[in-house]
């Protein structure tokens, strides 16, 4: 594990080319297999990895990720084990901890999020996405991130009006997580018009934060299309978790599942890159 307590490495990850940002729940379905899966995604070309710390009440997740959370918790995942997991990971890309606020809030002896951020930073976490923490409640976590040189990634929803959008832009660092459509996480067939509209609205704020689009991306074409629509990265969760779930259900060897993850990861990364090539985006 190459992280540490320096500055977040996230901004650099979006500089050179369209980013592929995969999500997996840490420890799904076991500690060891999950390490192999995350490492496979780095090999596939991941630029940033969102690493879920499972919470018992995942109110913003669809059934796919909810089941991943259950598998991970059933496999013995705890906050301490999560940090051990991060420490044990052999990847070089930036890591974003995706979890719910209560786990951050409860950690350590002091009140508030600072102890969690400090520990996470020490283990190599570069930033945080917290789905149940809107701008209204994010002050303490933002302060802790600042104190430890970490990024706080906010989610921009299709329903986010302009006044809220500006507030989120002001609050965030690292990148903006642009929610492709209403609903919860989960793979879908096509990319909605609202994605294009959301990206345009973010652009109008004048922010230079990278925008990564998530919710429903599962294929080369979708990854290509969101980049073509103006995104700087494609976030993919449920489509990858589906592979983990299937491997678990079918009792496949972890290396087989890892290979599948790597293959889909490559396809998605190529989709993201394809949009950057002028011919590909014109042909669409």
């Amino acid at each position, binding site marked *: 594990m190459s992280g540490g307590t320096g500055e977040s490495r996230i901004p650099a990850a979006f500089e050179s080319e369209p980013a592929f940002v995969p999500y997996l729940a840490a420890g799904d379905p076991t500690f060891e297999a999950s390490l192999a899966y995350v490492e496979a995604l780095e090999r596939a070309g991941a630029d940033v990895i969102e690493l879920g710390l499972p919470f018992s009440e995942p109110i913003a997740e669809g059934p796919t990720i909810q089941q991943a959370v259950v598998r991970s918790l059933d496999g013995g995942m705890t906050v301490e084990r999560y940090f051990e997991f991060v420490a044990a990971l052999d990847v070089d890309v930036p890591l974003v901890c995706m979890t719910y606020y209560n786990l951050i809030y*409860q950690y350590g002896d002091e009140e508030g999020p600072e102890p969690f951020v400090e520990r996470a930073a020490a283990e190599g976490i570069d930033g945080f996405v917290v789905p149940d923490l*809107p*701008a209204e409640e994010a002050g303490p976590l933002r302060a802790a991130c600042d104190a430890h040189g970490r990024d706080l990634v906010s989610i*921009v*929803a299709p329903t986010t009006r302009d006044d809220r959008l500006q507030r989120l832009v002001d609050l965030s660092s690292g990148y903006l997580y642009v929610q492709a459509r*209403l609903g919860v996480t989960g793979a879908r067939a096509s990319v909605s018009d609202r994605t294009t509209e959301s990206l345009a609205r973010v652009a109008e704020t004048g922010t230079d934060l990278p925008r990564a689009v998530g919710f429903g991306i599962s294929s080369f074409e979708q990854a290509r299309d969101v980049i073509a629509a103006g995104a700087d990265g494609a976030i993919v969760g449920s489509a990858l978790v589906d592979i983990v779930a299937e491997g678990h259900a079918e009792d496949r060897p972890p290396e087989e599942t890892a290979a599948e993850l790597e293959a889909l990861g490559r396809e998605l990364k190529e989709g993201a890159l394809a949009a950057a090539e002028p011919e590909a985006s014109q042909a669409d």
Partner: protein
Amino acid sequence: GKFGDYGGQYVPEALMPAIEELTDAYERYVLGNEDGFMDEFRRRIRDFGGRPTPMGRADQLSERYGTEVYLKREDLLHGGAHKLNNALGQCLLAKYMGKERIVAETGAGQHGTATAMAAAHLDMPCEIYMGRRDINRQRPNVFRMRINGAEVTPVEVGRGTLKEAINETMRDWATTVETTHYIIGSIVGPHPFPSMVRDFHRPISAETKRQSREAFGRLPDAVVACAGGGSNTMGIFSEFVDPRDSDPEGVDDVDLYAVEAGGSTLDVDEERGVAPNSASLSTGTEGVLHGARTKVLQDTDGQIMESHSVSSGLDYAGVGPELANLVEEGRVDAVNVDDDAALAAFHRLSQTEGIIPALETAHAVAYLEQHDDPSELGEYVVINVSGRGDKDLAAAMEETAGRDLPNAPEMDVFDGEGLR
């Protein structure tokens, strides 16, 4: 939106615009009576719901405890519990807001049935999410919702109980938030829900004040209510902690007791992450659950524990943030009684007063029995009879059969069949 350190709005960004819109509607319609909203609410909760509910003296309990015990009869509200106050209020508010559809979650089915009734009454399409296991355990309530025309959508994931139903309803709302209102069933969730739900239940408290003055010429010395999420609790407490009516004199002298479900024991099985009780005010710690900072049953990591109570309506790992704050401030006493005491009280109220209470309510009734000297509670004690027990008959008899309760009735009248 805060009650001391408690409360707040811990929800996904996608929902925040709807929460802001709801906050605005709450302030205008509920607090400001814009377009006569509250007038219509009061008319409908009277003509459709049956307000005011009566408050009557419990003759035999009064004699038993050496103090004047009065019962506030929310069990007589349409649907059989206080729940309709809130369901009707929010459904009407959704209509004023131009929403076209209602969603709600339900565990044991009480909030779902109240919501289905209110939605039918106001001609609003309505979808209720309910865990698969709960559906199969609570068939009469599923019947009632379907008969009232609500869609009942089984939630197949996980244990198939309330927690999964809440998640699924959140998902629906996150997808349909522009046209749909989510009716939360207790004084929990993000602001403005805790305040709004309390205000729709506020008539309980206002009536209790008026009826106390009519019945015995002054306010009671103590008010006792069961607390799960806490909607009936804050319903009957609200005018004593934050009086809005014309006669606030003396409210500070009224002692308020929130009786939680002690379950089988107050101890927590940290290893298994299970709390064999639902006493989050008494034994929980500060945390963030379902949109608000409040007292929560959680492990040291912050993972929410499985709670337990013989009463499914109290079986919840959190509690309303306002109630958590009132306990912290010392205005409300958090107490608790265990499953056995609640079941004994279920039978006691049924036998001595002719009122079969909900198992939730039985906890409030049990507190007097558990008290060393109930007369120390004061000369006049009001218990909030939050709901009727018809929904709990089978559960109560099954639970009774496995215990050694001195006042349990024999069921040998049946012809060699099981309890159901």
